[in-house]
C-alpha cells in the first residue's frame, strides 16, 4: 500500500454520504471498502479516521445508525442517509462541483489563450 493518495480532509464526509446514497444502508467496513473500490484502490483510507467521521455525521443528523446483520450473518452497525443528510449531500456535492470546475478551468492548458 505504498504511495496511495491520502484522503483529503473534509472530503471523507462527502464520500461517505455519496456512498450511502448509492448503496443504501451500509456498515462501516462496507463504506470503507466501497470508497476504496470506487477510487480504484487509489485511496489509502485510514480506517481509524472513518469511525470518528461517522460519529460526527451522525451527531450532525446527516446519517442515522442501527444494529443489523451483515450478508454473511455478522452483527454490524448499519448507517443510512437521513433526509437532512440527502440535503447536505446535494449542497456539498454542488459546492464541490463548483470548486472542481473552477480549478479545472485554472488548470486546463491554454484553451482561452489559443
Amino acid at each position, binding site marked *: 500500500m505504498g504511495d496511495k493518495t491520502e484522503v483529503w480532509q473534509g472530503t471523507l464526509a462527502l464520500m461517505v454520504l455519496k456512498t450511502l446514497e448509492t448503496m443504501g444502508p451500509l456498515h462501516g467496513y462496507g463504506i470503507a471498502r466501497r470508497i476504496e473500490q470506487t477510487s480504484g484502490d487509489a485511496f489509502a483510507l485510514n*480506517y481509524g479516521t472513518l*469511525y470518528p467521521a461517522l460519529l460526527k455525521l451522525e451527531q450532525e443528523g446527516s446519517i442515522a445508525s442501527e444494529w443489523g446483520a451483515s450478508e454473511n450473518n455478522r452483527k454490524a452497525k448499519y448507517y443510512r442517509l437521513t433526509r437532512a443528510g440527502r440535503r447536505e449531500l446535494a449542497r456539498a456535492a454542488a459546492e464541490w462541483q463548483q470548486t472542481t470546475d473552477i480549478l479545472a478551468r485554472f488548470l486546463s492548458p491554454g484553451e482561452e489563450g489559443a
Partner: protein
Amino acid sequence: MKALRRWIARASGLVGHPRRERELADEIESHLQLHTDDNIRRGMTPAEARRQAVLDLGSTEALKEAYRDQRGVPFADHFLQDLKYARRALCRDPGFTAVAVLTIAFGIAGPVVTFTMTKAWILDPLPFADPDTLIDLRRLEMPSGDVRGLIRADFLDLKRTTQTVRELAGYGESEVRITGGDRAERLRSAMVTANFFDVLGVHAGRGRTFMSGDDKDGEPCVTVISDALWRDRFRLDSAIEGRTIRLDDRDCTVVGVMAPNFQFTLLGRVDVWQPLVLSPEDAVDRIGRGVRAVGRLAPGRTVDHARDELARIASDLAAAHPDTNKNRSVRVLRLADEVRLHHDMGFIVPVLFAMVGCVLLIACVNVTNVMLARASTRRREMAVRLALGASRRRIVGQWLVEHVLLFVAASLLGAGLAIYGAEWITNSIPLENRQYLRNFAQLTVGWGSLLFALSVGTLCGVVFGWIPAWSGAHVNVNDDLRDSSGRTTMSRGMARVRSTLVVAEVALALALLISAGLLVQTARNLTKIDLGFEPARLLTFRLALDEAHYSTPAAVRTFYERLVDDLAGRPGVTGAAAGSFVPFTGIDQGAELFIDGSPDPKPSDTPGTAIDQVTPSYADVMGVRVRQGRFLAASDGPEAPKVVVVNDTLAARHFPGRDPIGARIRLGRDSTDLWTIVGIVGDVKNYEPTDRPESQAYVSIAQRPRRLMTVIVRATGDPEALASTIRGAVASIDPAEPVSRIFTMEKMVNFVTGPFRTISTFVTFFGVLTLLLSAVGVYGVIAYTFAQRTREIGIRMALGARRLDVAALVMKQLRQFLVAAIVPGIALAWGLGHALEAMLVGVTPTDSWIYITMSALLAAVAALAALVPARRATAIDPMTALRYE
C-alpha cells in the same frame, strides 16, 4: 444549526459512558470480523487474515481516543477522568488523605466562623424596612466628644424643624413591675414614641403596634409585649389582644405582640413596649431628661444631608439657648453603623481575619509540603505517563484536580467544624451580652458560609496545587525512567521551595503566637486590675419599691434598713448593704456638683459627679477603701446634719492642694441642701476595668432615700447559693416586691470582659494550633532532608564524625529556618499587635518580654520536632549507610 446539534449530542455524550464504550468496542470488533472474513475469502489463513485486519485498522486505542474526543466535550471528559483518577489516588493513601483533609478543614473552619460572625453581626442588613435610610441621632458634647441621648426639648425642636428626616422617633429603656396573675415580676421595658415602629417599618406579630395619639398625655395606657413574654407569662393566650395587665399599678391594655424575631439591638431584650409620653414640661426643660432617637430619612436625602441640616439646627438652638446648649451638637450615623459600633466588632474583624488567614496558610503550606514530597515519589509514575503520550498540560491538570478535590472535601468538613466553632462562640458570650447582639448572638452556618468555605477551599487548592503540579509535570522522562533503583530524590529547586514554605510557616506561627501572647497577657491584666472593691463572693439583686406602698422617705428607708439587717443576720452571709449606683450593674446616677463658697458656673460648664445613695454598711461590704475621715454611719440619720463621702478623684479635682474634709457641696442646681464632706474613699471602677476615674459622692439613704436600689450580699461561700435566702428575706418584709437581676458581681464583671475573653481564647486556640502545625512542617522537611543525606552522613561518620557533629548538622538546618523566619515573623507580629492595640490592657504591642518568650517557645517546639530526625541521623550505622542505595 449543525454545530449546535453536534454540541448537544456531544454534551449528551458525557452521560451514559459505559454503554457507548461497549457499543464502540462492538463496532470495532464487527469491523475486524468483516475485514477478516474478506481476507479469508481472498485466501489468507484465518490467523493471517485477522492479523492483517488489525494492522489495517491501526491502533484501536488511538481510534477510541479520537472517537471519544469527537463524542464528548474533551475538556469536561478529561476533567471527569482526572476526578476519577484523583479519587483513586487519594483513596490509595487514606492515612495521608485523612490527615491532610483534617489539617485543611481546621484551617478553613477559622475563616468560616469569622465570616459567619461578620456576616451575621455586621454585613447582614438590619431586619427593618429599607435599613439604609434609617439614622441614629444623639447629642454630642463638645469639646469632650462624649455621646449621650438627646435632651427631650432638643429632640422635639429637631423633630419639628428638620426637613431631611421624614420622621424622628424617640426611645429609652426602663423597667416596669408587672403584678396580678401568679407572681410579681420586674420586666425590661422600652419607652418609645408612638411612631417608633412605623419609622422602623415593622409590624406586630399579633394585633397592632402604637398609633399616633397613644403617646399623648392622659390617653389610656396601652402596651405592646414581646413574643417571649406572651409565651412565658401569658402562655400564648389567644385572647391577649385587649387584655388588661397591671404595669406599675396602672391598668394597661395589651394592643399587640411583637414577632418572635423582632429585636432592636440598641435596647437589648425588651419585654414590654410602652408609649413614651413627652410632657409640656419636657418641651422647655433643656437640662432635663434624655431620649435616644432613630429617624427615617426623607426620600432622596442622604445621611450627609441630614448630618449637615441637623448640625445647623443644633447650632441655631445653641444660639437661642446659650446657657444650656452652647456646647451641644448632634451626632448622626446610619443606624446600621451605630449598631456596628455597639457590637464593638468593627476593628477586630480584620485582625481576626488576618489571624485565621495565617492559620489557613500554615495548614495549606503543611499539606503542600507533604504533597511535594509525594510529587517526588511519584516522579516515575509521571515519567511513565509522559512517555505514553500524556501531555504536560494533562498532568498539571490531573495534579490540580487531585489537589482541589482534597481541598473541597476539606472545605465541607471545615464548614461542619465551623458549626461547632460558631456554637462555641455563641456559648462563650455571657447571656446578658447576647441580647445586644443581632439574632441574640445566634450564629447560623448557612449557605453563605458553605459557599464561602468552598470558594476559599477551591482557591487555596488551585493556588497551592500549582506547586506540586508544576514539579510533578516537569520530570525528565529519560532520567526518571532510567533510574531503576526506585529511589527518588527531590530536585534542588523543589527542596528550596519546601524550605521556603517551612520558613513562611514558622514566621506566621511566630506572629500568631506573639499576638496570642499579647491577648493572654491582657486577659491576665484585666483580672488583676484593682476595681476599687472586692468582687469575690458578692451577690447583687435589684429592687424597685412600689411607689404607692412606699410613698414616704421614711417608709423606703425603713424597708432597706430592715432588709439589710435581716440579710446580714442570715446564715452564709457575712454582710449586706444597698446602693443606688453599684458598679457593673449598668444603673448610674449623677448630679451637678457645686462647691459651697465658689460662684456657681453656667449650666454648660457645671461639673458633674456620680451619686451613690447607700446604707452605712456599704463601704465595709463592698470593700471600698476609706482613705481619710470616716464613711457614712448609722448616726447620719434623717435629722442629723447632711454628710457626704467623696472619692479620690472628686477630692483631687475640686479641692486641689487642700483638705476637702469639712468643706460643703451642693448636689443639683435646684437643691439648697448643703452636704458636709466627712471622708474620702478610693475610686471604684463602675463600668469597665479600664474606666477612667470619675468623680463620685456617697450619701446615706437615711438622708436621701431612693426606691430603686441594688442590694449586695457578701457570702461566706458560693454566692449563687444565696438566691433563695434573698427571696425569703425580701418576702418576709414585703411579699409583693419582686426581686430582679440576681447576679454575682463576678458574673457582672464578666459580662463586660466576656467578649474580650472570647476573642482571646479564640486566638490562643489558633496560636497553639499553628505552633503544632509548624512543628509538623519543620519535622517533615528536616526528616526528609536527612533521609536524603543518609549516605553522606554515613561517609562523614566513617571518616570520624561523632554523633554530636551529626546532631549539629540537623540543628544547623533548624537554625537556618529559625533565623530566616524570625525577621518576617516579628514584622508581621508587630503589624498584628498594632492592629490589636485598642484591645490591649497593660501591655504594649511591642512588649519585648512576650516577643522573646514566644520566640523561645517556638524555637523550643521546633527543636523538639527536629530532635526526632536528629536522633535517627545519629543512629545511622556507617556500614549500612554506605551500602544504602
